[in-house]
């Protein structure tokens, strides 16, 4: 992805329309509240999170064995298995499967992995048309914009804006913004897509090593429509999607939809195991940085992620900056800890797009210590030289000041003196604090000075 602006600049842009920020923040906070209610109604919620975290810890510690087991069972079930090291290899595999069958059109349900791989663009360049069938992703595709949220791809768009888009692209009447009517229009278009496409690609939520089946969770049933009507069914999954046994779904399916949107379970939790007679099933296992992440002990826990998006909904920075300001397919707190592993230079700003408030770690259904990892990524980014020189310079000056009581006391005095006597030196447009905030009152002596005079009088 090419972009020149960092998160802070994109977020500032987003904040120019405060009404929109309030509305975006409110919509996502409402989902956070739904999540809280669902969690509170579930017996042993915290124990479930603990269990999910432990199962995933086992998976990432034994990933090699589980992947081999999964592959063997897939093959037994008649599914063709491919291994892709990176996006390029993944896209080539999908293309070769389609080309082999002379297929020019494909329907795709929601898959963040294929978004990350830029599969649609790759196939379109080679003459294959891809339609996203998840409603939110469909809307984003029409608008030629990436998803802003992994579960709610167009949460940043108002219904009126979607009405405009549909008017321009699908020929609906101008000014139509009723969500039900708009959804019906999209459904009509998509039904035609489902009926005419011979190939369907889905993502994977859970891949069961024990049986070789995989589970796809949707609310819209779009993955099922695509898969059931296709001659060629393709699934793309990241290596970390494995769970050891089918019974573990009892833990994850209870957590996923509750964490994501406060719903007890997704409407469709579909198990795919064997091709129908005459149908082909292909499954692509994609590394794309996962094994690098596995090799980073401080960060490997992020492979536990089940992509529920709860950390985004709870994150005040995400809610008030919008998913697109993260300039990465996966935005929000989880995106900020996954992205630097893929390209540290490109994503060096993301771990800093957080106050380290820790709410993300508390809602995470698999207990990834997200805010601790944000802190650790900051250290990595600086250590490897991806921090601006002037920041390093000011940090060194700060370290010098704070390591000497004498310099520190003088600096404190000078700072307070300046604020009192020459406020223009501090209260100006070069000081981002001062743009929308006044400086603290500095008319008093410091506590240290007070204590030197009065300390002995106190008892």
């Amino acid at each position, binding site marked *: 992805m090419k972009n020149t602006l960092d998160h*802070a600049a994109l*977020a*500032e842009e*987003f*904040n120019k329309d405060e009404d929109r*920020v309030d509305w975006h*923040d409110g919509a996502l*906070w409402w989902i956070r509240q739904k999540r809280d209610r669902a969690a509170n109604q*579930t017996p042993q919620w*915290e124990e479930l999170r603990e269990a999910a975290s432990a199962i995933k810890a086992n998976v990432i510690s034994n990933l090699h064995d589980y992947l081999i087991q999964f592959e063997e069972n897939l093959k037994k079930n008649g599914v063709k298995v491919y291994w892709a090291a990176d996006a390029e290899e993944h896209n080539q595999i999908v293309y070769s499967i389609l080309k082999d069958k002379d297929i020019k059109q494909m329907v795709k349900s929601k898959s963040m992995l294929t978004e990350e791989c830029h599969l649609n663009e790759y196939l379109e360049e080679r003459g294959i048309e891809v339609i996203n069938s998840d409603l939110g992703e469909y809307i984003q595709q029409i608008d030629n914009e990436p998803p802003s949220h992994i579960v709610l791809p167009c949460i940043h768009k108002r219904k009126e804006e979607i009405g405009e888009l549909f008017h321009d692209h699908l020929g609906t009447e101008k000014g139509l913004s009723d969500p039900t009517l708009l959804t019906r229009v999209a459904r009509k278009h998509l039904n035609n897509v489902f009926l005419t496409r011979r190939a369907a690609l889905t993502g994977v939520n859970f891949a069961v090593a024990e049986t070789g089946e995989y589970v796809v969770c949707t609310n819209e049933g779009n993955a099922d429509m695509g898969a059931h009507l296709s001659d060629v069914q393709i699934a793309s999954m990241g290596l970390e999607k494995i769970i050891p046994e089918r019974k573990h779904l009892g833990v994850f399916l209870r957590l996923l939809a509750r964490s994501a949107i406060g719903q007890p379970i997704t409407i469709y939790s579909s198990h795919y195991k064997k091709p129908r007679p005459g149908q082909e099933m292909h499954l692509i296992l994609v590394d794309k940085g996962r094994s690098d992440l596995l090799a980073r002990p401080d960060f490997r826990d992020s492979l536990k992620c089940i992509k529920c998006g709860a950390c985004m909904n*709870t994150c*005040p*920075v995400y809610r*008030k900056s919008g998913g697109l300001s993260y300039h990465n397919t996966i935005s929000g707190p989880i995106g900020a800890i996954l992205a630097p592993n893929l390209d540290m230079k490109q994503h060096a700003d993301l771990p*800093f797009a*957080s*106050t*380290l*408030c*820790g*709410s993300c*770690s*508390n*809602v995470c259904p698999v207990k990834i210590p997200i805010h601790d990892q944000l*802190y650790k990524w*900051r*250290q*990595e*980014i*600086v*250590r490897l030289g991806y*921090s601006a020189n002037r920041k390093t310079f000011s*940090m060194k000056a700060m*370290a010098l*000041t*704070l*390591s*000497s*009581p004498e310099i*520190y006391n003088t600096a*404190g005095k000078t*700072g307070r003196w300046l604020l009192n006597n020459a406020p223009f030196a501090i209260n100006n447009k070069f000081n*981002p*604090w001062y*743009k*929308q*905030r*006044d400086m*603290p*009152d*500095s008319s008093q*002596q*410091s*506590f*240290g000075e*007070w*204590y*030197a005079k009065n*300390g002995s009088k*106190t008892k």
Partner: protein
Amino acid sequence: MKIGLFIPCYVNQLYPNAAIATLELLQKLGAEVVYPARQTCCGQPMANSGYEHLTQSCNDLFVENFSGFDYIVAPSASCVLHVKDHLHTHTNEKAATEIRGKIYELVEFLTDILKIEKLDAHFPHKVGIHQSCHGLRGLHLAQMSELVAPAFSKPRQLLKMVNGLELTEIERADECCGFGGLFCIAEEAVSVKMGKDRIADHTKNGAEYITSPDLSCLMHMEGILHRNKSNVKIIHIAEILNSSPIKA
């Protein structure tokens, strides 16, 4: 009981009254309090910016200042959390380990160590509590709204002992104010928006004062309140707890 009083750098320079209140309150409750004069900062501003490796001399200085006390107490949850999580030194790791175990934020020191049950304080105002994130999710000064777990709140427990004080509620009990250390500069737009929204939650629920165990959050909100000429004030919790009793 000998207490080392840790007054974080920005509190020392900009909020001396909160520091004085902390000192007086601890003395009122019978503790022997010493303020080591050569203290500066816990090193958090550098560490949170990714420069933890530059905090070594800060850490050494901290250990030099605060070794040998029964407890170390500070009126700032964020700084205490940083010391608890990150204070290490090449020169005297044994002393650093001791300090990490003995350092307390003021509120938790009053409720968990001194276990106070009453206070002679009077503050006849409507007060909203701002849960600082580091106090809440780091030091567990209160139950976190994300978890399914029994409710408690140490700041609330103390403020309920204050005569005349009326606690006001807020809709988002423990949302971050957007200060976030250097975040407040680097991500100015989001930081200010977060602060404005926190303040609005307090003001629409009738707070005259916003209080907290963390002055950094309050400093940020004060800057916004002041700029917008609001009558709502910020006050560190120590100043409320140390307020004078009603004269008989």
